[in-house]
């Protein structure tokens, strides 16, 4: 399975052209990238490499920085965890945003700084697989809702990511646990999501409900013995020597 960080299937040709040329540094392209971010938010696509180029333009031209675009980029990066996308975005933000600072140490922090810190908190919870806490944090404050409001289907996208991660580690999982992780608080919603979106099965016996994940490459955990690979090239020197001696 090949992965290429700088490519994106859904990337339009004009963005590709800017990224490959020196126009990626031209402040005039900022608006083009900003529109592209809105497009990603609406169409549920994600192009990390292009978004980093926008953050770089902000880094070089701080007066152009639009806080709500930055928070949208960060919110989009949350939907692809676990991945370095979010931290790569943070690396290009101004240092004074102090994403992981203990909050409330200064009263004069701007709204922007507070937003970045809130999103970083969400990222930490997702990256450390504390899904139940992620949802309770997200629902604890209207500010969070505002931050992810522009990202169409944010909750759905995160739920799918969580399901993918669960599918890699579990063959069977207790419905109660999964309910909390996906924030689907009633049995019906969970059943619908699990069977329709994930194609998993639900098994009920008595009071306990168990979700069964079909076997995949990641969750089979097979023991194997890796044998060494032997290629003819390894013997090149020995063979050559044989000929040299003969001559």
């Amino acid at each position, binding site marked *: 399975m090949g992965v290429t960080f700088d490519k994106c299937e859904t990337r339009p040709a004009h963005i590709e052209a800017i990224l490959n040329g020196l126009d990626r*540094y031209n402040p005039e392209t900022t608006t083009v990238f900003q529109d592209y971010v809105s497009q990603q938010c609406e169409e549920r696509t994600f192009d990390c490499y292009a978004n980093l180029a926008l953050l*770089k333009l902000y880094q070089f031209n701080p007066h152009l920085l639009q806080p709500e675009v930055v928070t949208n980029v960060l919110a989009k990066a949350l939907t692809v965890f676990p991945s*370095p996308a979010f931290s*790569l975005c943070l690396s290009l933000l101004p240092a004074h945003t*102090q994403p992981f600072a203990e909050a409330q140490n200064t009263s004069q922090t701007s709204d922007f700084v507070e937003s970045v810190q809130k999103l970083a908190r969400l990222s930490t919870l997702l990256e450390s697989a504390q899904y139940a806490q992620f949802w309770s944090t997200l629902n604890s404050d209207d500010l969070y809702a505002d931050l992810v409001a522009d990202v169409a289907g944010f909750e759905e996208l995160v739920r799918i990511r969580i399901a993918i991660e669960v599918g890699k580690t579990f063959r069977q999982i207790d419905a109660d*646990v999964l309910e909390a992780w996906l924030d689907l608080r009633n049995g019906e919603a969970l059943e619908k999501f699990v069977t329709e979106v994930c194609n998993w099965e639900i098994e009920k016996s008595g009071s306990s409900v168990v979700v069964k994940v079909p076997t995949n490459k990641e969750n089979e*955990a*097979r023991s*194997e013995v890796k044998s*060494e690979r032997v290629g003819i090239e390894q013997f090149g020197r020995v063979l050559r020597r044989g000929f040299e001696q003969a001559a």
Partner: protein
Amino acid sequence: MSYEERANAHPNLGDESDVEEEALVNDYREQVNFDDEMSDLDRTTSIDAASQAPDLQAQLAAAATPLEYQATLETKFASYDNYCNLFHYILNSDGPVDLEVPSYYWAWDVIDEFIYQFESFCRYRNRVARSGSNEEEAQLLRENPNTWGCYSVLNVLYSLIQRSQINEQLAAMKRGEDPMTVAGEYGSRPLYKMLGYFSIIGLLRVHCLLGDFSLALKTLDDIEMNKKAMFARVMAAHFTTYYYVGFSYMMMRRYGDAIRMFSHILIYVSRTKNFQKGGNSYDAIAKKNDQMYALIAICVALHPTRLDDTIHSALREKYGDQLTRLQHGGPEALPLFEELFRSACPKFISPTPPDFDNPAVNVDPVDHQTSIFMDEVKNTLFNPTIRSYLKLYTTMDLKKLAGFLEVEPEKLRSWLLVNKQRSRQIRWVEGGLLEGEVVSANDLDYALENDLIHVSETKAGRRLVDWYLRNLARVY
């Protein structure tokens, strides 16, 4: 006293070009923003070749010579102007210029020093603003926001790359064609070719210093990372390249690739005994050497791998005790991770002038990048614990293990998910540095059936071929 007056008062600090004209240029420069800044080079004083000829050699030598540690701001400003003039002369004269450069390594030295001065200027400026103690210097820096600007520095590097058609040349070489067919008027000359080539390495470094790790790796698309590469002929360049590539991989959480890069160059250095004696770059290389061992220690702790024997024993020697503590993980290891990271990371910079009026908001970019890296370390801190326990069992009950570890079962589930996720990594196979395949990087795997953990281990079979060949070579 403004900078122009200062420059006039110390004409010897300038580049020996017409001082008045220089002052005009500076005056002009202050009024410009981006558009003009990108073409900064076109506007600075051009050197009148006839009258400047004797000075040119001095200027070439100066451009490749480090500034004194105690250099004043005036000297730093003057040095910047010096570079602008020199690069303008090289890039924008009537056709390629014939230069007799002081040494074979000049092209590398000049790019290296140029970036180093940019880096140290940005860090100095940030420090002045942060400490808020030197009002005079702050004022001077405030008045000259475009000196050592990021756009000018990138402009120089990109212009050298484009003029020399170096990317086209490298691409042709990759295809096995003659690079001269695409080199053009400039790129066919060794000086331009070398400047262009080392500008690519320079870009890698600048992007990394600015925290743009993916673009840093992307920059090297046309360069093949092997011993035949051009950078390998200049030790310092060879070294620098692998350090920044390895570091960028590390920040992209591709620890396997980072270890591969650091190991490659460290083995090379350990075998190249010659450089160790004397040489003025020895101290710098020795320091980077230690830094890379520290980074390997971090990477190996986050991503257990079998290291090359040479590296492994050197690592034990330098960081033995620390390595054990890192590999053990847990909250006690956190300060050590941070300490090693800080000692070994590049000196990150902020490309724009700081806020001189609010010292508190000028956070050191090194603190910024460290906190970002440490967040990932914190998230994966219990991976070693998980692994050490699971190694002992083939099946295990989650609640029982949680009892052993004295944590809530819910917490243990999170740890298991995190460890599983981090054991899948992207690893380079072929093509550009950013490409790769997802591989399972751990010999320990597991899956949960409700609360029952099934553990499996991948064992490596005996390696016979290597042994056989080695012994064969000995007797035959």
